[in-house]
């Protein structure tokens, strides 16, 4: 994958996270809907074991809900890319010839 395509790919992901996520349907997803209909949704209430930075994809301290969601999306997208990148560097050993191709054929 060429450097240019990587850049475009990441930009596309960031654009989706920033500009489409605020328009996401607020309806419950399939599992949540089933839990609601079948009366076991309450089992999950108050069961959170961790305090996280951006619960429900809302960036803290931002007035506008759309902006808070977009920010959370952008931060998450970057986090995921960096995590895979670091993981890949650790897991995948350079082999003969593979390093010379870093950045990939274009």
């Amino acid at each position: 994958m060429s450097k240019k395509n990587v850049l475009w790919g990441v930009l596309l992901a960031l654009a989706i996270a920033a500009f489409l996520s605020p328009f996401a349907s607020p309806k419950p997803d399939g599992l949540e809907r089933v839990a609601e209909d079948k009366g076991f949704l309450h089992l999950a209430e108050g069961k959170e074991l961790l305090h996280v930075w951006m619960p429900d994809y809302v960036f803290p301290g931002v007035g506008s809900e759309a902006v808070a969601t977009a920010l959370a999306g952008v931060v998450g997208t970057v986090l995921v890319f960096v995590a895979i990148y670091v993981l890949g560097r650790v897991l995948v050993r350079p082999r003969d010839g593979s390093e010379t191709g870093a950045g990939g054929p274009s």
Partner: protein
Amino acid sequence: MHIPDGFLDPKVWAGAYAVSAGAVGAAVAKAGKVLEQRQIPLLGVMAAFIFAAQMVNFPVAGGTSGHLLGGALAAILVGPWGAGLILTTVLVIQMLFFYDGGFTALGANVLNMAIIAPWVAYGTYRALGSILKGTAGRNVAVFLAAWLSVVAAALACSLEIALSGTVPLKVVLPAMLGWHVLIGLGEGLLTVVAVAYVARLWGVRWPESGVSLGGGVR
């Protein structure tokens, strides 16, 4: 389909953690062997795209919503091992930073969405690939692989919830499958579009499911 804390009992979530740990360990070992460093940015882009796409819920049949899972997309483009790593990373970050999916349920969520969904998609895509030909054939194979991956993940999710004694299988299974056969249609359409786009970018008609990424063909 991210299971929150509270739906699964300890024997089920611990068991799911154990199975997932084994499968992710195998994926890590396999990826370390077959991946090349120049392929890492591709995995990163795919993971970033799947994370972003998972935030965009589309309405389904009024009253519920679905979003791209991406297990099929990743499995078709980079093979099931790479897909496992990508989806596991996405799920871990969703849990740690957004609390989407519970801490105890992470093993089950990884099992359903990072292991079962990609492998079902991969198997379906490969099997249909030997029967169907041409661009239209590819699109049908991709659509069915993606649809089935969502249905299979929903089936696994139902079993885990039922085994936990949360609600009987005969109650949860039809409800889960009923919604996810519809949500899967969205997965199918989005995956067809994304695969067609990447295939054109790569100049290939049928992405080989990660021939060089440990798709099982080498």
